[in-house]
């Protein structure tokens, strides 16, 4: 079965084409600057050369058409006809409380995704545009939506509710949803394989740290708690996002600096985190580089970042009454050995025997970075959200 996986942003569209039985990627690509005169389509057939095309792509509908044209292109394509695509899987950021798992797209499902625009005004509308575009260009092909929030819907009330008036939850569904669910789901399953134990027996803390960062306490294969909340601003310190802070800082700052809602939102989402403290960059690689050159602000940013992550791991170990493994994934988690070292070295009380050599190894495979026999293991597990979307799509389409 051939499955097309799509991830639509407000002015971008990323895609991967899978042969799902062999889980082989046939092609990957992306369209950027949708809505402009110089939109760029980048396409790479597996084993082939990368193709770049600049043209005017006005909307997602046209973007999907161009992607399909490229996939069936005489020279750069990977199939002879679009009828070879059996199903399409979409990443949707917010599934609210309605979607606890991936689901087949129907009229009702679309209506519900639209209803959730309120909760994710920047992310859900483009996903909807992607779905409509596929309907127009690949009529009759079943579509599946996979939600970033769905995996975390297993959280109990005590972890998803905020201690504020209950009426706010009833009226506006203000609660913790958590994000990166597909990734936390994928790496926890992979970790169980590496550990050679059934997922249902394990207590895991998964740390998805990239540009956005969240960690999750995963017990018996389900999320018990996760650090992101109603929006992806809560929790860990990130590249440009503050993460946790005293909520009173918001009205206090608005008053003192005479800030509007938009300004304070932008301050916390785009002007905080590593960037604000280091004054250099939101990119951990540049922070580490500057730190090695003796920059004290970069060092402070790094220390705050790793300290806050360590606190979360400790808290989740307590929340689960124990811990079997910590998993690092995503851009920073998979690649930044200094971050992993700074976090893990001071977690000896959890029974972690950190292995510096293993930590420094570069690899695309899931691997241990603790010594053999360490009571608690630490793993690096490369994430693969697209593959999980493709798998979910396959399962749902097969059984429907």
């Amino acid at each position, binding site marked *: 079965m051939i499955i097309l996986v799509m991830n639509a942003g407000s002015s971008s569209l990323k895609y991967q084409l899978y042969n799902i039985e062999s889980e082989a990627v046939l092609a990957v690509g992306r369209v950027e600057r949708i*809505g402009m005169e110089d939109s760029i389509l980048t396409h790479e057939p597996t084993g082939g050369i990368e193709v770049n095309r600049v043209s005017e792509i*006005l909307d997602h509908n046209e973007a999907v058409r161009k992607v399909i044209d490229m996939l069936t292109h005489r020279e750069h394509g990977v199939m002879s006809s679009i009828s070879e695509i059996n199903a399409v899987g979409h990443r949707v950021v917010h599934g609210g409380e309605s979607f606890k798992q991936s689901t087949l797209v129907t009229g009702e499902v679309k209506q519900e995704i639209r209803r959730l625009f309120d909760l994710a005004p920047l992310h859900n509308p483009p996903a909807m545009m992607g779905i409509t575009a596929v309907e127009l260009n690949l009529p009759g092909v079943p579509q599946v939506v996979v939600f970033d929030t769905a995996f975390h819907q297993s959280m109990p009330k005590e972890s998803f509710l905020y201690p504020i008036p209950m009426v706010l939850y009833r009226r506006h569904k203000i609660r913790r949803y958590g994000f990166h669910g597909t990734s936390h789901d994928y790496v926890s399953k992979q970790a169980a394989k590496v550990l050679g134990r059934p997922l249902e027996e394990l207590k895991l803390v998964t740390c998805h740290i990239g540009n956005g960062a969240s960690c999750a306490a995963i017990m018996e294969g389900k999320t018990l708690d996760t650090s992101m909340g109603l929006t992806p601003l809560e929790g860990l310190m990130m590249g440009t996002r503050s993460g946790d802070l005293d909520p009173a800082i918001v009205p206090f700052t608005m008053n003192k*600096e005479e*800030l*509007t809602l*938009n*300004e*304070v939102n*932008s*301050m916390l989402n*785009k*002007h905080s985190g590593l960037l604000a403290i280091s004054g250099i960059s939101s990119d951990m690689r540049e922070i580490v580089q500057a730190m090695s050159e003796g920059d004290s602000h970069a060092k402070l940013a790094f220390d705050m970042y790793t300290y806050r992550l360590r606190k979360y791991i400790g808290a989740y170990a307590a929340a689960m009454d124990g811990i079997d493994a910590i998993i690092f994934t995503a851009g920073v988690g998979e690649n930044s050995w200094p971050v992993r070292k700074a976090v893990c070295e001071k977690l000896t009380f959890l029974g972690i025997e950190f292995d510096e050599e293993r930590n420094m190894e570069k690899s695309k495979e899931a691997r241990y970075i603790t010594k053999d026999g360490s009571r608690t293991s630490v793993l690096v597990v490369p994430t693969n959200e697209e593959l999980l979307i493709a798998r979910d799509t396959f399962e749902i389409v097969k059984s429907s």
Partner: protein
Amino acid sequence: MTAVRKAGVVGAGTMGQGICEMLAFNGLEVYMVEQDEEKLNQSLGMIEQSLDKQMERWALTSAEKKLVMNRLNKAAELSELADCELVIETITEDLDRKRDIFTQLDQICAPDVILASNTSTLSLTELASVTAHPERVIGMHFVYPVSKTDLVEIVRGLKTSDETFNRTKHFVENIIHKNGVMVFESPGFVTTRLICLFINEAMHVLEEGVASVNDIDSAMRIGYSFQHGPFEMADRFGLDSVLAALERMFREYGELKYRPSFILKKMVRAGQLGAKSGAGFFNYDKDGVRV
């Protein structure tokens, strides 16, 4: 419905700059026309300053600022607006000059291009009358400061078509994300008519010695949650603009309630025009901050 991606703005004074910045911020390619190159550069400089100020307030990142600046294009002549899907005229409130611009735009732009005016008091019908396609002429009255005030009065002239109105409303609500209210042509529409009367009455209260400038401003600001009291508001609009609006409404309606207060006339004659001249009812520094 034709999407709007390129917009022309004729006149880049205070309101024009605000409109250009807001359009570019919302992802449109903007073509700006001014009397000469020097004025255009000056306007671009002012927009850049305004964006810098927003960066200081964390409202914008430097990448976002760059994107906005890149979408602003200088157009030396009106004819360069030929492939814009919407043109907004926002020169000073001078009927003859506006008529001249609409006559030219009517010839330059295809008949389905919306021609909008940001006029606050002049007659849309009269402006439209010089064009061959009066049905595509409409008013889009923005409120200062444009980037922060989410209101546009969409003004229908006598011959403005439903299609033009609907396309404009769609543009206002879905492309630039503001609230559009429909008003029919009438001097001052809703906002200018009501706010100028409010300001004028505050000056009468002052003349009668009922309360001081500070106390009148505090009373209205705190009592009724206005962002600024009537005097600071007038200073920020420009006292000359307030006077001009009142005089036009006085002429059009012929009612005494629109007669401008003597204090206002006196201050304008003395060149105390408010924030832009550094002094009005209050004093301001060069960034327009009250001192």
